[in-house]
């Protein structure tokens, strides 16, 4: 009786230790991904260093599903730059090109008008009610580089959330059932 009890205890304790190790490993993976993301935010100076192109308004340059690398410096905004901006009331940022820039003399404040390359009209219709220009604080970053097609993963996961759940479920299963 005594040593059966001992064996049962030792089996139980191994399982718990293994479980804890796996939980810690998972936690480490998640936190290191978060660290990398936050570090990228610091280096590029913008809240979203990588964005996925969602619409076709910048075709044929940027197609839906491409990802853009953003960077924000204190350099003044100039015409021709591809800027990412958010409008009050809309949660999704927009990536378009600045076509008109008016910079004030002393304060360095700037009025910017943007337009998507593939659109016929400028973005005044997209701005908030009564807003004619974008200002510095609306602009989150400039696009400096891009990779094609990689963003489709994000689009699929956002538009068909069931795939996201399946993926996370499968990953979770893999972690739990792996023996090492």
């Amino acid at each position, binding site marked *: 009786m005594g040593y059966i009890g001992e064996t049962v205890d030792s089996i139980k304790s191994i399982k718990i230790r293994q479980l804890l190790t796996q939980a810690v490993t998972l936690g480490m993976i998640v936190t290191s991904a978060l660290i990398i993301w936050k570090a990228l935010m610091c280096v590029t100076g913008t809240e979203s260093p990588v964005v996925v192109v969602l619409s076709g308004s910048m075709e*044929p340059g940027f197609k839906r599903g491409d990802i853009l690398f953003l960077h924000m410096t204190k350099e003044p905004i*100039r015409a021709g730059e591809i800027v990412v901006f958010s409008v009050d009331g809309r949660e999704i940022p927009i990536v378009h090109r600045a*076509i008109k*820039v008016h910079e004030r003399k002393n304060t360095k404040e700037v009025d910017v008008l943007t337009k998507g*390359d593939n659109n016929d009209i*400028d973005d005044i219709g997209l701005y908030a009610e009564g807003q004619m220009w974008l200002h510095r604080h609306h602009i989150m970053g400039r696009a*400096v*580089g891009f990779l094609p097609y990689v963003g489709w993963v994000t689009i699929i996961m956002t538009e068909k959330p069931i795939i996201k759940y399946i993926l996370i479920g499968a990953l979770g299963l893999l972690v739990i059932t792996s023996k090492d």
Partner: protein
Amino acid sequence: MHSFGYRANALLTFAVTALAFICAIASFSDKFSNQNPSAEIQILNINRFKKQSRGNDEVSLTLDIAADLQSLFTWNTKQIFAFVAAEYETPKNSLNQVSLWDAIIPAKENAKFRIQVSNKYRFIDQGHNLRGKEFNLTLHWHVMPKTGKMFADKIVMSGYSLPDAYR
């Protein structure tokens, strides 16, 4: 260690790493291209020059734009976005840039061109400072690669001016 899952994982990781490396090298190779673009712009006609009811000046003009941007195309170039902007200074603003015309150049063959066109976007000032105003016409281009870093540059042409009176 030799299960299908492990092999698929290793293969996928290696493929993604190799792909990322190739994209980075493709982008890096753009640094070595020899570039000498040229451009010339003439104002053919000032069609209209008036003050709007809201008080801002507006100009409509016809431009003759001749450019050769063929040397900017590399094997990693998807397209070049070119635009002409009028740049000038006013008492209130240290810099005004107004895009007058733009075009997407999809291939090297289309990069040498000469066109006469009236301004695609309205040339409207913030105020009424445009009479007799001297301004630069700058041809900007934005090289959009198949993958990687984007480059932008410009040619500034100065010496243009608007008439002293409305017409």
